């Protein structure tokens, strides 16, 4: 049996008719064709499927859309501002923080939530914020570097000298 669900995804209101047991991960990928959200275990054990709900990183593989009505969901496809990439996306590309790229969307969103809350996090704070996102390619080093670079670029500009 299908249920009617209204979701706001990347700023757009979406009306859906889906079985109630479909997780947010399945709905994003299979109903809305937002395949930027990846999956590595579907059991909450890897962080790959992370999306933002009202700005907080959550695991889409363990979230029910029916319980998320009225919230704002952000996926990697919603990070850029139109044609302008988010500073995190820019920094990840420039510094080689995405190798195979599969964990990248989840990490970008987790990092976005961190930077939205803390403008200049320490390296340790970045490590703790990203401790729920596994990556097998990078050794995390370039990821941490890229978050630091993006944070720096997002600092409010000083008044011109």
């Amino acid at each position, binding site marked *: 049996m299908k249920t009617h669900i209204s979701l706001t995804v990347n700023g757009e209101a979406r009306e859906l008719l889906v079985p*109630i047991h479909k997780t947010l991960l399945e709905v994003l990928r299979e109903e809305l064709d937002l395949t930027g959200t990846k999956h590595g275990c579907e059991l909450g054990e890897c962080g790959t499927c992370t999306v933002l709900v009202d700005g907080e990183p959550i*695991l889409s593989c363990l979230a029910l859309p029916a319980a998320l009505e009225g919230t704002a969901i952000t996926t990697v496809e919603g990070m850029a501002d139109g044609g302008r990439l988010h500073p995190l996306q820019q920094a990840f590309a420039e510094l080689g923080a995405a190798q195979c790229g599969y964990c990248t969307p989840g990490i970008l969103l987790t990092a976005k939530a961190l930077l939205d809350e803390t403008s200049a996090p320490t390296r340790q704070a970045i490590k703790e914020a990203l401790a729920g996102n596994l990556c097998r390619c990078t050794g995390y080093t370039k990821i941490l570097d890229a978050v630091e670079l993006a944070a720096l670029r997002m600092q409010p500009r000083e008044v011109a000298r």
Partner: protein
Amino acid sequence: MIRLPAFEYLTPRTVGDAVKYLSDRGADAMLVAGGTDLFPNMKRRQFEPKVLVGLRGLRELRGVRVTKGGLTIGAGTTLTQVATHADVARRYPALATAAGLVSSPQLRNMGTLGGNVCVDTRCNYYNQTFEWRRAIGFCMKKDGDICLVAPGSPRCWAVSSSDTAPVLWALGATARLAGPGGERTVPVSALFRDDGIEYLAKRPDEILTEISLPDADGWSAVYLKLRRRGSFDFPVLGVAVAVRRDHDVVRAARIVLGAVASQPREATAAAAALVGGPLTPDAITRAAELAAGPAKPLDNTDFTHPYRKKVTRVYVARALARLAGLDTGPASYEAGGSDAVAR
């Protein structure tokens, strides 16, 4: 992709409705709040409810309230909120620590305090997919009739894996339960049973609505957690110690061990040995030896069980030393693999 089976989803408007749905649907129904324990178990067919009663919309279950002398935390409050709440951090830092050490940041944004207190017991013969469990032969906790970790045993030895429950127990917290017959309050210590299957002493149609912490005056507590990695992993040992001191003299003490049995295990003899004197190095060492006694880990979690038993002594000693303000060694020792943190 491993997916959920179909189910019916009910969204009560009040706790009363939720209780009614739960009792109406009996064994077919289960509660869901954060879903971080329930949904993986449903995907692996360890749980097969036909009906889910969703608690996420119930505002009355959420939030931290300062009460006379204490604090009351709604069972639906997320672990992140518990870990970062200023009043929790100030009065019950060990609880904030424990909540902040559960799994990963994302999971703590979803999982709730009530969910962590009631988290299903774990066993590495049980937390496996349906196909895996079928291949090895189902165990008594689901679909089978023997215990695979202790084949001669009449009972299930799945392990209590909550980080917050040992701390709440040690702090003398109480749990508010709402059931068809009304509400009742029980000590958190009375919420559990030492059985891997029937590990909760609450009735199946009761809902844990809130946790109340008594006045912290004079009490101090520490929680240390052993696990392989600094994130994701469930505790393979949790040590919660709480003492009330009058000047330097210990007037009351509780030591509660997590992940050593099917429920949090109180080390009463060890705690009793502390009462009446100061937390001296000798007293700490003696208590640590006594505390390791009740720890009887079996080979059904990460790390070898003799090792987990051995480290119990060490962790109890360190937790008490921390309370005593002794120089426990290099400040950085808690970071890294063993992850014994009390911020």
